[in-house]
């Protein structure tokens, strides 16, 4: 049985996924290249986007056949997946899946399923979407594989603790909680020791669940790959220091998927190498993500997944581009600290220093640095109803950024997942007023 599942899993990843992609390519080729709309405020579409779709489609397709074939772990976005990969785990990222659901505006439907069971609408939309999807079995990706192990890390929020406990109760599988104490200033030695002890325990548990063992070299290889992937992603983002930025911050929200879900794999790195080269080429040719870049902005917090298109168009039409976001940048920062020479010790540092696990002075430093490095003349801080850890302190951050850097800053109330917690008309009005204040 396991043997058959394994064959299905490999065929899905190696044959069916690429074949579907080739079919899509062929279909598009026969239709001919669609000319971009003349009145579009955006630059030419990125060639890499097609490859991104292929990569993610194949990832989710493989996932359908993963359980029973390979060990499956469901992990939070800030979990040190590098420790699981050499043991052959297929990693599922419920947050990425929830973002996908949000883009397709499925959150209300999935959330309704568990609101009936008493889950409050005030909970994070990702948590509601994920649990709703698990309970109802509804997903836009066909099927998510059943986990053998659940892994959550408190470096992004405390909600994950209760969210993953709910998953553990549902699936009746072990839950590993990696607890990373919040950083005020810098992490003291005893905090680091505490996290190190947990990571060593994780290795034991993951080996037990998977029945596999990884040599130090195998672990170091994955860490090396993950670090390179993170650096490549960082290089993609850095292309936007150029004027005009070769892509939009909103593009970045979508192209982030591989570094989140496929970090530590060769496919991830191949992809970002290709993307970086394309972006560098656009910079060399002066091609912008929007046609007429007049103002450069920073975005703080997660995107409003279900309205990314509408918002990016609203901005692009007026010559505004989010050239950097603290969210996409987070994936270029923490991972760059991991080190194949010391996988566990460096993971301690990397995964406790996630932006959301740091105090306001640290966050201010990150936002100020990004603002300077990317020469922005304004910032929008998304006060995200679903993500309080990311939204707390934004009034102070706003005051400091505008005072210290002399840039215009606006706090926009919205939600990263649930359109019911979002007033599109009001948000559009506020953003428009913000943009008008530049003239």
């Amino acid at each position, binding site marked *: 049985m396991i043997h058959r599942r394994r064959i299905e899993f490999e065929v899905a990843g190696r044959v069916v996924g690429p074949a579907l992609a080739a079919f899509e390519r062929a279909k598009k080729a026969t239709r001919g290249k669609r000319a971009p709309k003349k009145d579009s405020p955006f630059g030419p579409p990125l060639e890499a986007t097609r490859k991104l779709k292929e990569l993610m489609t194949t990832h989710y397709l493989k996932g359908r056949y993963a359980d029973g074939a390979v060990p499956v772990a469901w992990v939070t976005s800030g979990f040190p997946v590098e420790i699981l990969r050499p043991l052959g785990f297929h990693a599922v990222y419920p947050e990425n899946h929830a973002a996908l659901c949000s883009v397709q505006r499925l959150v209300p439907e999935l959330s309704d399923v568990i609101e009936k069971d008493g889950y409050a609408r005030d909970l994070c939309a990702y948590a509601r979407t994920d649990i709703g999807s698990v309970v109802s079995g509804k997903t836009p990706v066909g099927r998510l594989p059943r986990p053998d192990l659940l892994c959550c890390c408190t470096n992004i929020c405390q909600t994950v603790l209760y969210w993953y406990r709910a998953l553990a109760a549902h699936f009746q599988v072990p839950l590993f909680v990696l607890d990373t104490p919040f950083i005020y200033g810098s992490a003291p030695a005893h905090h680091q020791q505490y996290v190190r002890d947990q990571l060593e325990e994780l290795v034991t548990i993951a080996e037990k669940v998977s029945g596999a063992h990884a040599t130090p070299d195998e672990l170091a290889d994955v860490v090396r790959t993950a670090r390179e992937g993170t650096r490549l992603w960082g290089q993609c983002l850095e292309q936007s220091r150029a004027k005009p930025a070769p892509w939009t911050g909103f593009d970045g929200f979508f192209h982030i998927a591989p570094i989140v879900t496929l970090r530590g794999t060769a496919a991830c790195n191949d992809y970002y190498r290709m993307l970086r080269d394309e972006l560098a080429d656009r910079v060399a040719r002066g091609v912008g993500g929007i046609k007429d870049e007049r103002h450069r902005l920073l975005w703080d917090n997660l995107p409003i997944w279900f309205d990314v298109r509408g918002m990016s168009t609203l901005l692009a039409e007026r010559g505004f581009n989010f050239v950097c976001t603290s969210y996409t940048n987070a994936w270029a920062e923490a991972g760059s600290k991991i080190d194949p020479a010391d996988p566990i010790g460096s993971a301690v540092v990397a995964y406790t220093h996630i932006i959301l696990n740091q105090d306001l002075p640290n966050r201010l430093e990150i936002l100020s640095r990004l603002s300077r490095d990317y020469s922005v003349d304004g910032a929008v801080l998304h006060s995200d109803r679903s993500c309080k850890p990311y939204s707390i302190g934004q009034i102070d951050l706003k005051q400091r950024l505008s005072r210290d850097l002399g840039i215009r800053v606006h706090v926009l109330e919205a939600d990263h997942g649930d359109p019911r917690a979002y007033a599109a008309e009001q948000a559009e009005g506020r953003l428009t*007023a913000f943009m008008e*204040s530049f003239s």
Partner: protein
Amino acid sequence: MSVAVAVGVDVGSTTCKAVILDGSGAVLASHVEPTHPRIEDQARRVIAALRDQVGAGELPVGSTGYGRKRVPGARALTEITCHARGAFRLVGKGGVLVDMGGQDTKVIRLGPAGDVADFAMNDKCAAGTGRFLEVILGRLQVPWPEVAPLVRGASRAVPVSSTCTVFAESEVISLVAQGEPLDGIVRGLHQSLATRVAALAGREVDGEVFMSGGVALNDAMVEALALALGRPVRVLPTPQLVGAIGAALSAR
């Protein structure tokens, strides 16, 4: 005689305001009426009527408010920009402008040159707006002209903790049922609202505070706001027309 140069239309959630300005930015004619669901028709009619009033032909039009995009042929700008421009035209200096309309409350910081240095608005619901007062005063059967004397005469304020229009309405009903005095409840309502606006204004309220919007016509609210902010609040002349004036200035 002054020559009409521009029309400004502010289609708000409750009322539609329109002005015609002369070259110096002075209002030659104005009109206020409840907002009609067919905004295009209403805007056309109101503009034509104002033009007839001053004997003007075709004029450039600026629009603002929720219905700004529905005003035919107009240059549409947000209320933030238009209120700022309108207020600056009226006072000629920077400061803090509190605009309380039917569905929005805005706090706009005006730079010394009349630019929008910063702004904050109420959350997406109508808490802390004119609509909130309208609903609850309607429920208490207190007509507008009686509001200010009633509030001033109250011996104490009965705290109203909800700022959600729906919850506050239920809260007020239960306060009435508990035998709390009407004047105290109305004073409590104004205080609750003013505290909320003061929170929106934030910690750093410096410079003069101006007020615009339909709610500025309610003296009790102006007084409650001054108390909450700890500084005088100056109501702009024709507070309801400030947005429309700003729109007309932008049309040129």
